[in-house]
């Protein structure tokens, strides 16, 4: 696997084709819980980025010495180490946002996307590929968090990153900053993503068919 793809491809796939949220539907808990504003979403994304890249690096480096029987608990210990670092760093640097994110920072440990990448990728590939994969996956996660957070903040408060967009006369969509808004927005974004993928597949199918017809010199209607 590692031999026929480049490290760059491993990174790119996480951003779009195998996006952890829109395609694999992983990590739904922080996705729904902390995206009521764009800044919370971005901070959560950065925290997840740090944890995933760090733990992928360590897991991939130590993979020869990790016994198969206890690998999951070792992965969790590695992840928890980085989560603790993130937790205290945020507490020191951004106490207000740390307070708002609350329990969801420690809960990064339980983010199935992170453990999933260790089990499925980092433990089977060398350090370079593992880190590139982690960068792509957490980048994709951040994109999804930001998409959800910005939609919810724009509609729910009429602002983006706390900057007022529509003036004081704006009617806020209260539901958007409440939990139902998270489910609605996520559902609609998934709908849009699947629709787009389907359209793209159809388009590529048509292109391939036209190519084949051109090569064979046969008119498909004839």
């Amino acid at each position: 696997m590692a031999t026929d793809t480049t490290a760059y491809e491993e990174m790119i796939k996480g951003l779009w084709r195998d996006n952890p949220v829109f395609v694999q539907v992983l990590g739904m808990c922080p996705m729904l819980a902390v995206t009521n504003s764009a800044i919370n979403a971005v901070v959560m994304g950065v925290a997840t980025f740090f944890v995933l890249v760090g733990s992928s690096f360590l897991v991939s480096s130590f993979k020869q010495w990790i016994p198969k029987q206890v690998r999951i608990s070792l992965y969790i210990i590695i992840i928890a180490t980085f989560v603790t670092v993130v937790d205290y760093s945020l507490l020191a640097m951004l106490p207000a946002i740390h307070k708002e994110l609350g329990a969801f920072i420690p809960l990064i440990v339980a983010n199935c996307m992170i453990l999933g990448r260790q089990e499925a990728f980092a433990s089977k590939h060398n350090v370079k590929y593992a880190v590139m994969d982690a960068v792509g996956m957490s980048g994709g996660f951040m994109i999804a968090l930001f998409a959800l957070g910005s939609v919810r903040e724009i509609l729910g408060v009429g602002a983006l990153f706390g900057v007022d967009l529509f003036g004081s006369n704006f009617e806020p969509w209260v539901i958007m900053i409440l939990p139902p808004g998270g489910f609605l927005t996520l559902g609609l974004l998934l709908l849009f993503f699947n629709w787009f993928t389907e359209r793209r597949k159809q388009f590529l199918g048509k292109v391939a068919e036209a190519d084949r017809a051109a090569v064979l010199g046969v008119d498909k209607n004839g």
Partner: protein
Amino acid sequence: MKNKDPKLLLQSAPLLHQELTTPAAMKDVWIALFPATCAALWFFGLSALLIIIASIAGAVLTEWVFTDKEKRRFALSDTSAGLTGLLLGLTLPSGLPLWMAFLGGSVSIGLGKVIWGGLGANIFNPALLGRAFLLGTFPIAMTTWGPAGGPGEFFQIHSSNLALPFMQGHYDALSTATPLGLMKFEHQGTELVSLFMGNTAGSIGETSSLFLLLGGLFLLIRRSIDWRIPVAIFSTAALFSLIMLLTSSAESTTSYPSPFFTLFSGGLLLGTFFMATDPVTSPLTPKGCWIFGIGVGFLVVLIRLYGGLPEGMLYAILLMNAATPLIDRYTQPKIFGR
């Protein structure tokens, strides 16, 4: 193979020998809603008309956008989208900004119907889903009620109706409380006569019990709706509120309305005749209809008495909609001989 022959009409069982098609059933409901709509225009004037038009436009446009090109003509010709828009419009307050009514119609059809697979595939009543969305999204605008006016004020449009999209409406007239709000928060009753005629504050289509009853009776006589559901809702709601009234202690902080007040106030009649009886989202079996109706009647009184909001019809019906597949499953008649 895609079937493009419009003459071939596929229908699901039961295949009765009766000229009951979807457009015909819809036509009955349109006729039945006519008196209530006229009453809405009489009491709330041009504002009501504009709100109804906006929500119908939102519903029909959404249906049009999300339907395949070849099926568009059929999907729109059964008028179900327009009917959803009208039903939603009738549940909105008269001062609501028009863009919210449009958005509500759009959500009704988009999230309430199309996303489930179109007509007949939805779990929740689309109009009520749209209203629930609006109530959750714009809680203040959706509970600011304009007073019912007479014919002299027909051409007065609320300035809040004309708010620009995404902007707040500016309310000109003093807002009043609905009979249910008065009962819940002020412990103050409303005369049964005005509840019956509809000269009270409230959603534009829900106030006039008389005209809603006329429409409901028409549907019952035409057998467009199952009589069990309205009968079950009315008797349960009346009986339950009577029991609550009789067993209440004098120093209780909750005010317990009379059974008549329960039946004629708020959206109970509108919801019973036109939303709870929606053939798509109510049970198919007779026994299931009884359970469904009793559930709605019980929940509506419970929410009205002990819930945070004065009106409970919306959530009562939506909750029972959610239970409908289960009810259907457990009330299937036994096959003879087994």
